[in-house]
């Protein structure tokens, strides 16, 4: 169905505002081409009165970082009774915090690089030199340092020598009060987009094998929610340096992407399976993007997950959608109907 009134929430006051505005604008254009009446709104003091007055059919959260991903905006929409596309608020809170997501997934048997999360106060109270030495002794080198919340590669850095760790920590602390330090795993860097769809109905004679024909795709059906989750073709990321940072992400021509990833079939399948399982384990809904590394031995390591994946011209979810032969507006139109139907 088309002609829905959809509000795309974009902007916000996070460090990723610029990216969010671009995601929202691109998504709105795609949806308008599919006949929807789309309004782009920032999330500020005017949003609640606006929602009450206009009661859109559905909301899509194209906010990155902060309230857009930590469950706050989702909670507002739940209170306002507006159907929205994406993960419910309580699960956002788990996925948004990188350490919490890693903890939950490791307990469930996932591979994820060893890590430690530390606040500035910990370094201050226990003494930074001793803490730096302890972190390096505990995790080894090289290390990845990043803010424990937020995305777009902001504040992230690779540390190859212990002497570089304080500088990397200072950079990460500029974006938040807690940092996540984890072992830096080299290998094939992947962005794995996961989608939900209504589960095939056996009465209609349809099976997964009939319908999910994408090589390397793993699906997971859930009887309780009557949904199937499946991964789109993996996007392999080859940034120009160690880190897929802001410049590498948003300067077209800087990073090379391979979709599907140049992996053996078994590793591609394992990566897709891991992403779908992570999506399900964390209770994510409709759409997510899992970032992962396949190491030299073929082990797939979970790094982090995004409940509001980027939708810009250089973002990986739209690349995966295109590589799967679909158009972003068409796909999101279907997800909008799903969101409305469950309200």
């Amino acid at each position, binding site marked *: 169905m088309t002609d829905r009134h959809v509000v795309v929430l974009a902007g916000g006051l996070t*460090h990723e505002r610029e990216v969010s505005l671009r995601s929202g604008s691109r998504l709105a254009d795609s949806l308008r081409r599919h006949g929807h009446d789309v309004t782009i709104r920032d999330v500020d003091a005017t949003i609640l009165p606006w929602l009450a007055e206009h009661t859109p059919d559905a909301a899509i959260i194209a906010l990155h970082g902060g309230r857009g991903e930590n469950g706050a905006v989702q909670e507002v929409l739940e209170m306002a009774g507006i159907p929205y596309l994406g993960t419910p608020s309580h699960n956002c809170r788990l996925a948004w915090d990188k350490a919490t997501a890693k903890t939950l997934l490791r307990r469930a048997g996932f591979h994820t690089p060893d890590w430690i999360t530390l606040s*500035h106060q910990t370094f201050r109270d226990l003494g930074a030199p001793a803490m730096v030495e302890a972190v390096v002794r505990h995790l080894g080198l090289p290390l990845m340092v990043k803010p424990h919340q937020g995305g777009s590669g902001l504040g992230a850095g690779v540390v190859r020598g212990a002497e570089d760790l304080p500088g990397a920590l200072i950079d990460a602390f500029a*974006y938040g009060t807690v940092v996540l330090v984890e072992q830096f795993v080299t290998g094939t860097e992947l962005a794995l987009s996961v989608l939900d769809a209504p589960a095939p109905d056996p009465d209609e004679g349809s099976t997964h094998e009939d319908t999910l*024909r994408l090589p390397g795709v793993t699906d997971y059906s859930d009887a309780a929610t009557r949904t199937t989750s499946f991964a789109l*073709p993996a996007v392999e990321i080859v940034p120009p340096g160690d880190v897929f*940072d802001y410049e590498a*992400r948003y300067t077209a021509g800087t*990073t090379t992407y391979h979709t599907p990833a140049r992996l053996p079939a078994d590793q591609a399948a394992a990566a897709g399976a891991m992403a779908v399982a992570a999506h399900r384990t964390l209770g994510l809904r409709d759409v997510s993007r899992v970032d992962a590394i396949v190491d030299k031995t073929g082990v797939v390591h979970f790094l982090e997950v995004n409940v509001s994946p980027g939708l810009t011209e250089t973002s990986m979810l739209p690349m995966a959608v*295109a590589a799967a*032969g679909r158009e972003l507006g068409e796909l999101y139109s279907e997800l909008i109907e799903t969101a409305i139907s469950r309200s």
Partner: protein
Amino acid sequence: MAVRQGGKWKVMDMTGNSLDHHLQRYAQRTSGMRASAIRALFSVANRPEVVSLAGGMPFLNSLPLESLAAEAASLINEDGLVALQYGSGQGIGELREQICQVMALEGIQAHPDDVVVTVGSQMALDLSTRIFIDPGDVILAEAPSYVGALSTFSSYQADVVHVSMDDAGLVPEALEAAIEAVRASGRRIKLLYTIPNYHNPAGVTLSAERRPRIAEICREAGITILEDNPYGLLGFDNKIHRAIRADDADNVIYLGSFSKTFAPGLRVGWVLAPHAVREKLVLANESATLNPPVFNQLMVSRYLHNFDWQGQIKAYQQTYAERRDAMLQALQTLMPPGTTWTTPTGGFYVWVTLPEGLDTAAMLPRAVTARVAYVPGNAFYADGFGSRQMRLSFCYPTPERIVEGVHRLAAVIDSELEILQTFGGPRPHGAITGERSPSPDTA
């Protein structure tokens, strides 16, 4: 859902995609045109929740908008077929005469034939660079210098060499030393780019005593002066400084603008140049834009003719002086020990130097979280310096918002100092490519 219907999904080979198939065809001068996390943060700075001490937007609220609306309607009604038509590449004659009257306030005696109207003075800067600079030529510029000029110089692949300033502006001895050093390195100096009045970003003004000396040094060295003077009429002490061009018509190219004295949205500026240079500028202007917008030129011309434009400038001066005072007072009260700043007598900006070890670019995300914004100092250097400095603008926020902004900024600096203390003092600076080029409040 598509999955159930089958057939919609297929795998397409999109390997080796850089997302830019023009990649191998770009000119070398685009190599610095990349996404920047710091630049992206300014998207947040524009939100009303943030006190932006970053932008240099004039405060236009005192403009007589109703009268201007009537004037615009009258322009269309009475002169629409001219206002909406192509025009001269040099600009409208009557406006050029009026521009000469404006420049006369700064002691410049000029003929309208030597004036070229441009799309803001930024275009004048671009055209001047275009006609003088080959890749690798050296442009001398103050340390720090206007970020928009550095961007233009970079796009023409000039090498910028910074020259020290102090509280009295560009230091003549430093200029001489820079000329000698560049020449010793075998490079060719074409231009000195200078903002003599209420400098952007430094806030200082070149002293009257130094102006003829600077002109003399450049004349003897065969270096053309680009005198950029957008703020000259915005002094807070009823004083108008005599332009360098007023005493050197042959070796100075003067850039002027109505953006700060009237309205930046109209994008009307100008360049005054010696006859031979002016000929080339007209041709370059035609090449770039065919002609500056006629409607906008006529609006400016009518504004100068029909409105009390000098009274409006006095209103601007009063507004900005109050805001300057609010900012200086707040800095005095709230900044931590070891912080220094300049004391502007006009214009829009204060240049602040933070205690050793702080990095204003690295600190900006923390500031944005605290909902205050500034421009990091390294944006105003071509050689990587300026990491301890920041530019604060007092032109747009109200005095109350300025005080609130400085209050937030002081808290951010305290947090950053605490982080540095935790990790054992300053971290090494990044890519510094030039020689040490002190800024005005630390020279």
